[in-house]
């Protein structure tokens, strides 16, 4: 029923009117909107076309501009200007460059085409004075325009317009040419407006021939238009729309004129107006109905809003109660709580009703007094938001800290204070704990002597410094480290970067010693740096530095003392040169190094010639000064790696490294000798000294340091012997030979002492009578390893050596012993002993000989001494005297090996010898060699003349003996008679020996 009431006719009409009105309105609206959109669409389409076209034209113009600009860098242009700058004339060379430019211009002209048409009608190369140097069009010169480089030629490319009296305007690209940063010419390209730009506009107009496009230069110069210029004004503004699009910043505009075409619209405005009027009553009724309905809806909305508010209130109350903060509304007149949230009730352990009877000031120690409360009110009434902290006590007496945030508010026409409290008791307790801890740390840091500071790693600002640091540096905090710690720096120094703080393993790096200039004192700190996290989480630089100044100073003092001791131990106090100890040390190192790198050394021993004379004449002080100067010169003339040492007195030792051979060393030594012979000025007196240098070269002389020095010393003495002011090289081979000889001599000495020598005896006979006259004692060495050695193996070694004396006396002793034995046993055999002239010259020789004869109880006549003629030359008188003394005891003398030496008649005349002994070398060859024969004959004749006996040795054949007999020499010894034999064999030999018959026969014939 109720439903049918609602569907009344009026309602239906209203509803129908409403639907009809809506439909009409909708129709009109749609038609109108369609009209607007269509017009807008047409306009947008035209606008897009113009913008697109503007973009195309703009692109075209900028491309040409870039092309012309690029062309100004063409090498042909540069070449032309380079040649012209060198002064080349057009006639001789420059015109070729110009022709190249013209070719390039033509290439550009032919290359640049658009829509099949050349972009430029002509391109010219213009000189700085405006004259056309060359052009693609020969007639172009007639069209010279005024292009000057002065006013209107800013560097770069520009498009310029010139009024063409007949056809409108001409457009030119004018580009400046730079050569060595100066504008030296222009490239002028005339744009083909009519055939390129105009088709460009026409080409993309989408066949809308009723629209017009124009390219307009600054000052409204219409360069190109797709329609005659006068046409655009034939339409009213209602019929057309003009649109201008600027082309970048060039000042050029692309202008489009769009014709509005009414035929494009769907219907006329009158029709739309009539339809609109008809719908007005329908719309009015509809509006009334809607108004009534709206009132009903308003009431419904208010009810719903009331319910929603109530829900929101509950919701917010819940929110307030759930808040962890304590929230209260306070009556400012009484300080009583007007409202509190549940959290506050819980905090004070009271229910809401109980708490609403309490006052705010009851819970606050801070605002407990009326004055404080008034102050609080006064502040808050000034609309100040108060944030404060205060403390109070719970009902059970436990303290609490509250942070209050309160502001004044007008709630329901009533003044109130809205306060939010936050329990900060826990935070306060934590802060107290931290504060106490900080106090303890500060106390500790203030109490230690070490400097502790903390620095920002990025800004190098000191963030903290302990008392010790502040005491030393002053107030550091807030200042940069280089201002105080590294005085003298104006910015971060090498210490500031903190890359040393942490090692590769991320742990604090090693500690280091840090020297600091504090006033006039140097302080040393033992510093340990590390990075630690700071308040803001970033790492900062912590340095803990302990003052170790006292320790360092002690160490330095110790080191100084050590250095002084070392100087005393290793250096010569007078010359400051190395002393022996240091020299030997360096020599040892140098030897190792030379072995390692396979190089050579020269070890020199240097002695000043006749230094003693200077010392004696001018005093020791002058001598000392001279030694100092010599040392300085030596140092100055050697390299740093060489060593000069004072060996003592006026002796120096040099160690010269890297000496490959004697030749290289000679250069150095010559230089040294030259520098040392330059006069020395000492106490206003000029001295000149010379030097002798002995040198040995390692590894040629491969010895230890002592040996090398000894060899250098030996060489130095040889240099002195050579005549001073020279050098002498030690010869290792010679040294080896001398050592070997000394060793052999020692062995011979030992052989004498150990009774290893033996005496053999070679009989001497009278060939004419067949009788044995005696025997020559010949020494042999029964060597324990080599067996029996002949005299030639050892006697030459001791010739001239003092051992010769020992040997001679040993032989004399043994020979006399043997003679005594034979005498005792009835052999009656005299013994000849070879004796050195130097032995005879020994003082007391004769006395000792006589004494020995007496010892063995033998007659002097049993002993004959053979001496070499060559050994008696120098001391003829002395020897002659000794011989005379000996002859008195019956001892006889023979001149041995006569004929090999001087064969002096004076010797025969002045020496009281009884026998001449012809050397076996003549005797052996006398039958084959006429010279030897004559010598033998001569000696025999000489002996006869001086009434001396003559004996030939080396008689090895019977023939020789026969011949000697014929010449008048009856005595002989040799292998033909007997070889040397031990004394024990002599007796048996005598018994069985028979003289050859030939000799006896020859003697008989001679006698006859």
């Amino acid at each position: 029923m109720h439903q049918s009431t609602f569907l009344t006719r009026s309602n239906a009409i209203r509803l129908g009117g409403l639907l009809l009105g809506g439909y009409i309105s909708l129709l009109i609206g749609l038609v109108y909107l369609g009209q607007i959109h269509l017009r807008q669409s047409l306009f947008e389409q035209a606008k897009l076309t113009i913008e697109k076209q503007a973009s195309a034209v703009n692109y075209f113009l900028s491309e040409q501009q870039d092309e012309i600009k690029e062309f100004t860098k063409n090498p042909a242009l540069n070449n032309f200007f380079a040649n012209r700058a060198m002064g080349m004339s057009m006639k001789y060379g420059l015109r070729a460059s110009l022709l190249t430019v013209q070719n390039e211009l033509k290439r550009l002209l032919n290359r640049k085409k658009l829509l099949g048409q050349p972009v430029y009608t002509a391109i010219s190369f213009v000189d700085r004075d405006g004259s056309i140097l060359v052009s693609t069009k020969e007639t172009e010169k007639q069209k010279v325009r005024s292009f000057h480089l002065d006013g209107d030629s800013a560097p770069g490319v520009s498009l310029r317009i010139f009024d063409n009296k007949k056809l409108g305007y001409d457009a030119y690209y004018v580009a400046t040419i730079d050569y060595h940063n100066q504008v030296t010419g222009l490239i002028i390209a005339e744009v083909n407006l009519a055939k390129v730009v105009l088709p460009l506009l026409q080409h993309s107009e989408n066949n809308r021939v009723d629209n017009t496009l124009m390219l307009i230069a600054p000052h409204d110069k219409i360069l190109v238009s797709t329609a005659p210029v006068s046409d655009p004004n034939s339409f009213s503004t209602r019929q057309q729309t003009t649109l201008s699009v600027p082309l970048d910043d060039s000042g050029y505009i692309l202008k489009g004129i769009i014709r509005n075409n009414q035929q494009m619209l769907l219907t006329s405005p009158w029709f739309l107006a009539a339809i609109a009027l008809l719908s007005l009553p329908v719309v009015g009724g509809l509006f009334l109905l809607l108004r009534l309905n709206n009132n009903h809806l308003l009431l419904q909305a208010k009810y719903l809003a009331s319910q929603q508010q109530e829900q929101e209130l509950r919701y917010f109350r819940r929110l307030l109660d759930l808040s962890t903060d304590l929230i209260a509304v306070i009556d400012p007149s009484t300080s009583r709580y007007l409202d509190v949230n549940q959290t506050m009730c819980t905090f004070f352990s009271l229910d809401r009703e109980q708490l609403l009877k309490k006052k705010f000031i009851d819970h606050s120690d801070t605002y407990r007094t009326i004055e404080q409360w008034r102050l609080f009110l006064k502040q808050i009434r000034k609309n100040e938001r108060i944030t404060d902290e205060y403390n109070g006590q719970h009902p059970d007496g436990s303290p609490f800290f509250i942070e209050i945030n309160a502001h004044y508010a007008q709630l329901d026409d009533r003044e109130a204070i809205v306060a939010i409290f936050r329990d900060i008791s826990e935070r306060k307790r934590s802060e107290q704990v931290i504060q106490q801890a900080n106090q303890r740390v500060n106390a500790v840091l203030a109490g230690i002597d070490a400097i502790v500071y903390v620095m920002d790693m990025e800004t190098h600002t000191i963030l903290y410094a302990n008392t010790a640091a502040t005491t030393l540096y002053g107030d550091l905090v807030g200042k940069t480290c280089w201002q105080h710690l590294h005085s003298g720096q104006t910015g971060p120094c090498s210490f500031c970067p903190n890359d040393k703080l942490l090692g590769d393993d991320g742990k604090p790096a090693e500690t280091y010693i840090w020297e600091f200039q504090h006033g006039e004192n140097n302080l040393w700190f033992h510093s340990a740096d590390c990075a630690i996290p700071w308040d803001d989480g970033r790492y900062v630089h912590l340095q803990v530095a302990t003052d170790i100044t006292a320790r360092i100073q002690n160490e330095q003092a110790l080191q100084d003392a050590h250095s002084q001791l070392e100087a005393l131990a290793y250096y010569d106090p007078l010359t400051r040169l190395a002393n022996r100890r240091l020299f030997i040390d360096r020599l040892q190192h140098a030897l190792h190094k030379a072995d390692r790198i396979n190089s050579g050394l020269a070890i020199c021993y240097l002695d000043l010639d006749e230094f003693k004379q200077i010392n004696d004449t001018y005093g020791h002080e002058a001598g000392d000064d001279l030694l100092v100067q010599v040392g300085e010169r030596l140092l100055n003339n050697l390299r740093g790696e060489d060593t000069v040492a004072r060996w003592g007195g006026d002796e120096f030792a040099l160690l010269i490294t890297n000496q490959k051979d004697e030749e290289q060393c000679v250069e150095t030594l010559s230089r040294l000798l030259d520098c040392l012979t330059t006069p020395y000025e000492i106490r206003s007196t000029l001295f000149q000294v010379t030097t002798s240098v002995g040198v040995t070269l390692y590894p040629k002389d491969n010895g230890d340091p002592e040996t090398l020095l000894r060899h250098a010393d030996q060489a130095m003495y040889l240099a002195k012997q050579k005549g001073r002011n020279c050098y002498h090289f030690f010869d290792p081979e010679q040294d080896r030979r001398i050592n070997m000889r000394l060793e052999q001599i020692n062995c011979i000495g030992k052989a004498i002492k150990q009774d290893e020598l033996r005496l053999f005896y070679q009989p001497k006979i009278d060939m004419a009578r067949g009788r044995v006259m005696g025997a020559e004692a010949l020494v042999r060495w029964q060597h324990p390893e080599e067996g029996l050695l002949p005299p030639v193996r050892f006697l030459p070694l001791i010739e001239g050596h003092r051992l010769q004396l020992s040997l001679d006396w040993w032989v004399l002793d043994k020979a006399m012993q043997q003679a005594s034995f034979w005498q005792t046993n009835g052999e009656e055999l005299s013994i000849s002993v070879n004796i050195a002239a130097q032995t005879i010259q020994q003082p007391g020789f004769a006395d000792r000989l006589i004494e020995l004869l007496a010892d063995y109880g033998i007659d002097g006549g049993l002993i004959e001494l053979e001496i070499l003629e060559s050994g008696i030359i120098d001391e003829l008188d002395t020897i002659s005297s000794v011989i005379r003394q000996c002859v008195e005891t019956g001892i006889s003398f023979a001149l041995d090996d006569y004929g090999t030496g001087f064969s002096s008649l004076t010797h025969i005349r002045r020496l009281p010898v009884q026998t001449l002994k012809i050397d076996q070398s003549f005797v052996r060859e006398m039958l084959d060699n006429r010279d030897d024969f004559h010598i033998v004959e001569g000696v025999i004749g000489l002996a006869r003349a001086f009434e001396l006996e003559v004996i030939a040795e080396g008689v090895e054949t019977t023939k020789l003996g026969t011949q000697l007999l014929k010449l008048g020499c009856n005595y002989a010894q040799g292998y033909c008679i007997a070889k040397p034999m031990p004394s024990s064999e002599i007796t048996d030999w005598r018994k069985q020996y028979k003289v050859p018959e030939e000799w006896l026969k020859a003697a008989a014939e001679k006698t006859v």
Partner: protein
Amino acid sequence: MAHHFFFRLLLLFLIFAMLGSTGWTHDLADIKKAGVLRHLAIPYANFYTGREDGLDVEMIKGFAEALGVRYKLIETSWKDVFGDLTGHNARREGKNAKLLDKVPVRGDLVANGMTILGWRTQVVNFSEPTFPSGVWLIARADSPLTPITPTGKLKEDIKQVKTQLHNHGVLALANTCLDPGLYNMNATGADIRLQPKERKLNEMVPAILNNDADSTLLDVPDALIALERWPGQIKVIGPISDAQLMGVAFRKDTPKLREAFNTYFKRIRTDGTYNRLVKKYYPAVFRYSADFFTQPAQ
């Protein structure tokens, strides 16, 4: 007698053999009979580039084609060129030519931009002039020598150049158009440095760039090419010689061949073929000697 006869026969044969190698006539008819035209050429500028092309190569190829014979290019050197053409090596002595040793003939004509010089005309015959030339002094860009200001009179210009040359090093090449004797260079007091005979004309500029000397004599065609090839590195100081002409050289005993060439040359000048070739190889020369190329063919 028989022995003498054979000896005389052998002598005669040897004489003919020598004539055949040196004084052998090989004129137009012989060339047509042999079916080959031997073109002697020295690599020089764009006349013969050394790569089987060049103005003269194309020109003589056309000549061979016109004769109906095969074309053969034979490369030679300034030292050997006269020997290769005439059978006698030759060199300049004063203003005259001196004939040297005899050598085998290798070609029928020489065409590589050979300058028509007095002494050369004593050795060979030249065709109608084919190309204008002259000798310029070219210097390295950093040389103290300065380009002259043209006076309009060639003699004056030459004088201006020569007065600068005292004590300056100038490269030259004997027996070519760069022969210093041709231009009385000794009188300038210049330090004339004759280059080895094997040196080619197009190696003169690299030599001054290599600091062999400050400057060099150079013919105009080569100078034009050098200016393009080494832009900014060299400069033209000015002229050394009077205006010169180049031509094709023929043996003196081949007048028919020379005449045939002159006819051919007249034709290609008239029909524009020659100017097209010149434009191809020496585009700049029209700027210098426009008269030569525009005047009617002789």
